[in-house]
């Protein structure tokens, strides 16, 4: 082949891919459920530390317990409790999904479907709790 002919053969243009492909995990439901499970887990853990400490006041100082628990009834903390229930709800439902993946024969195959079922049940849970909590916090005495 002459050099002239070789110059005419153009190499096929390869488009760089915009997003990584060839993985079932990265950027998909599996990864995001793991991320959410970690973040909610850490948040719940630190709440639990504080919650055990403040509840322990009932043993040594009833008046102090009442003062501390009053702060849980303010609008800001009331919204924080919605965040807490949202975190616990997601961690609980996704935890059940993890157990299903580990112990059910079909678990790994339907993990993506189960993720969306978790999200749907979580939405139902919050649809039940959020209006109720807003009534408690912003409703009259």
């Amino acid at each position, binding site marked *: 082949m002459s050099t002239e002919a070789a110059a005419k053969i153009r190499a096929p243009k390869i488009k760089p891919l915009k997003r990584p492909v060839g993985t079932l995990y990265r950027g998909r439901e599996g990864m995001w459920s793991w991320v959410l499970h*970690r973040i909610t*887990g*850490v948040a*719940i*853990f630190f709440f*639990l*530390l504080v919650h*055990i*400490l403040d*509840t*322990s006041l*009932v*043993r040594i100082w*009833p*008046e102090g*317990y*009442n003062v501390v*628990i009053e702060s*849980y*009834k303010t609008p800001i903390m*009331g919204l924080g*409790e919605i965040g807490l*229930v949202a975190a*616990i709800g997601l961690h*609980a439902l996704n*935890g*059940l999904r*993890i*157990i299903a993946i*580990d*112990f059910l024969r079909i678990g790994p195959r339907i993990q993506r479907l189960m993720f969306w079922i978790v999200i749907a049940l979580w939405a139902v849970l919050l649809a039940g*709790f959020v209006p*109720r*909590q807003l*009534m*408690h*916090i912003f409703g009259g*005495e």
Partner: protein
Amino acid sequence: MTSTSTSIPLPGAKAPRRRRVNWEMWGWLYMRFSGVLLVVLIFGHLLVNLFLGDGVKAIDFAFVAGKLADPFWIVYDMLLLWLALIHGANGMRTIINDYARGRLRVVFLVLLAAATVSLLVLGSLVLTTFNPCPTGTPADLLPQFCSTL
């Protein structure tokens, strides 16, 4: 032919190995079993304390004392305390092992263990020595049944 006695293990015989407790496996299993129990227990805890009645607005010393006067809630809260705190601590241990290295990892693990053990002891003492009608507390802070004692 000289007689020698050399013991040759049978094909397929298991190599003698020291049996050790597989702690990671038990931790893995604990997360799943405690997780299922915690879903039920925490759902009940949130239902009674945040959802039913006046929700968080109803909580004060009299409310808690009224609950803890019943052994059912003592056992319930004791289960919550131990299952949840150990579940959370084991999860934090996993995260520390993932992200911290060297001496920092050891420092975090020691802090975590100290916090976990001291809160387990504190919470257990509170639940086992709780008195719903402590003397010296104004009567209007106490549950109603204290006045009939």
